């Protein structure tokens, strides 16, 4: 390895020895591609002409106030409906650059699987997606989307049959298939160089938002707020602001049924340091070291570990991590829909829920504040679940 793959004491290369040469090859390919104008050109063309970048920075018209401005970074408008598109296109190009002919991926709710299927279809790469059998059963539409774009969905019957087991299975596949296969991991987790690569390919979110904010307001925002599952949309939003000391970085974890219940996915706040899926990071685990299942109403945040760079940013105090419960997220989901005409993904609604809390407090204290919320995805995928959960007549009144 050319780089040490550490973020403070977190990260590293905790993968079977047999995968290390494949990780080295990936690191080499990434470092070369980063300095290769032809690669950057091709990626830029895809991001603009295919995916629809740059995405707008939208000032909320009705939420917030004269003094408290809430800006939304509109990753929901990206082709595919979420920030995931940024990095699957880039990793897909890297896979081709390495001469790989097959992509494998893990998926929880199916968002990353759908994004990978899209990249596979576009770039002519055979695509197989591991999905926990439980998840595949409850996310039929996304399974269909993947199949429609030509990907094969492989239900995982092992372990708890959810996202962490899908990651396990993808890693197992890769130990036998690395010669012709790229593991297109879905977030800033995994062994080095994945957390670095995925962050760099998502960095564009924050880079655009920073420039757009400066142009529109003449100054940097007071805070950037993003939801944290594995942590890719948040790392992408944070990366270009890390050096701007005056800008607060706030990651919002899924507090599920409440931080004091066992049903949440607040890894950075309630987990312990450990090693899972290739990296030293925070992990939800029992006292004996067995991995625990997480819980969130939003499948994309339902993961018992977190990208190692977030563990580091928390450790050095550069970013703060807070929680939003299922109920708070669902309320914010409705608020944005009703007040701004934008239906966010359940995941993004967690970030919004916290931003609304901050706005309320700033208004109460008469403070000026500019908040950038990363609206990581749109809510189309969540409609079936929303119909089931929301008792409209009662909840809509409560949100008024």
């Amino acid at each position, binding site marked *: 390895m050319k780089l040490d793959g550490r973020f403070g004491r977190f990260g590293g290369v905790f993968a079977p020895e047999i*995968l290390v*040469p494949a990780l080295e090859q990936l690191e080499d390919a990434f470092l070369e591609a980063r300095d290769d104008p032809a690669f950057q050109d091709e990626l830029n063309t895809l991001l603009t002409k295919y995916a629809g970048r740059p995405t707008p920075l939208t000032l909320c018209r009705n939420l917030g106030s004269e003094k408290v401005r809430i800006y939304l970074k509109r990753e929901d408008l990206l082709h595919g409906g979420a920030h995931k598109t940024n990095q699957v296109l880039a990793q897909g190009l890297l896979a081709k650059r390495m001469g790989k002919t097959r992509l494998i991926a893990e998926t929880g709710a199916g968002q990353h699987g759908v994004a990978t299927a899209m990249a596979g279809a576009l770039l002519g790469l055979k695509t197989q997606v591991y999905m926990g059998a439980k998840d595949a059963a409850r996310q039929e539409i996304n399974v269909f989307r993947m199949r429609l774009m030509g990907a094969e969905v492989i239900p995982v019957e092992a372990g708890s049959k959810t996202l962490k087991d899908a990651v396990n299975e993808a890693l197992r596949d890769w130990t*036998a*298939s690395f010669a012709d296969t790229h593991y297109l991991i879905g977030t800033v987790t995994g062994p080095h160089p994945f957390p670095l690569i995925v962050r760099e390919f998502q960095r564009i979110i924050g880079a655009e938002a920073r420039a757009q904010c400066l142009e529109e307001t003449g100054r940097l925002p007071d805070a950037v707020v993003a939801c944290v599952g594995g942590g890719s949309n948040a790392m992408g939003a944070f990366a270009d602001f890390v050096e701007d000391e005056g800008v607060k970085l706030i990651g919002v974890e899924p507090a599920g049924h409440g931080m004091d219940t066992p049903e949440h996915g607040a890894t950075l706040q309630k987990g312990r340091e*450990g090693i899972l899926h290739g990296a030293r990071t925070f992990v939800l685990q029992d006292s*004996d070291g067995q991995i625990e299942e997480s819980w969130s109403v939003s499948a994309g945040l339902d993961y018992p570990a977190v990208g190692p760079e977030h563990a580091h940013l928390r450790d050095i105090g550069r970013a703060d991590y807070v929680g939003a419960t299922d109920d708070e997220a669902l309320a914010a989901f409705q608020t944005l829909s009703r007040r701004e005409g934008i239906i966010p993904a359940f995941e993004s609604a967690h970030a919004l829920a916290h931003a609304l809390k901050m706005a309320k407090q700033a208004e109460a204290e008469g403070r000026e504040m500019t908040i950038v919320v990363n609206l990581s995805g749109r809510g189309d995928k969540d409609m079936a679940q929303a119909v089931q959960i929301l008792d409209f007549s009662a909840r809509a009144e409560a949100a008024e």
Partner: protein
Amino acid sequence: MNTRYDSMFARLKDKGEGAFGAFLMLGDPDMETSLKALEALVEAGVDFLEVGIPFSDPIADGPTIQAAAMRALKAGATQAKCFDVLERFRANNPDTPVGVLTYANLALAHGYDQFCDSLAKAGVDSLLLADVPSIEAEAFAEPAAKVGVAPVLIAAGNTPDATLKRIAGISRGYTYCVAREGVTGAETAMRTDHSALMDRLKQAGSAPPVLGFGISKPEHVQSALQSGAAGAISGSAIVSALAAEGIQAAAKLAHALKRATLPQ
């Protein structure tokens, strides 16, 4: 460091035999059966034992060993119970080398130094962490070696020479060579010729190489030894036999595999 493996390899060399090791998942189906199975395997002639401490997310294991770990955890296996069984095994078996094979998160859960102390106290000879490759191994190797537990590393056919050098510098007792790509399991047989890797390991000055992954038949053991390995390990096949037919079947398979290491 001087380990039970060194005495074992020396003794076998005098007899012209290769070493045969059997793997079991502790707590599958329960702790008492594991203890009896370990003793039956020794009785059947195995030279050394590898035991798994069950982990919920074993990324280097195929379906057979995953299922064994799940059964063990469901039946209430804990680290403390595993150490207890190993300690009881050691009390009656002073010479057979015993290695623990598990994952890094378990080793860190109660503090890594405490984990190593528990291994040493239970009479364990070596520790292999399946998700700690040689570039990460130093921090794990030193505390283990300090309490007399040999750090064992994995080498594979695709491991470059420079890495084999590092492995040779760290791995003690033996070096675990994976006989093919992929995860553990007897569904896919080992590849047959490993002489290139064995030669490269010898060049690098490695501890005796032992071949594992996909070994389920006497001819696999023979071809491992012919390639220049000092021994062979069978895991999934033994675990399957134990799960399907019980201790006697596992012991019988182990006996047949051990016989394949005798001089022809």
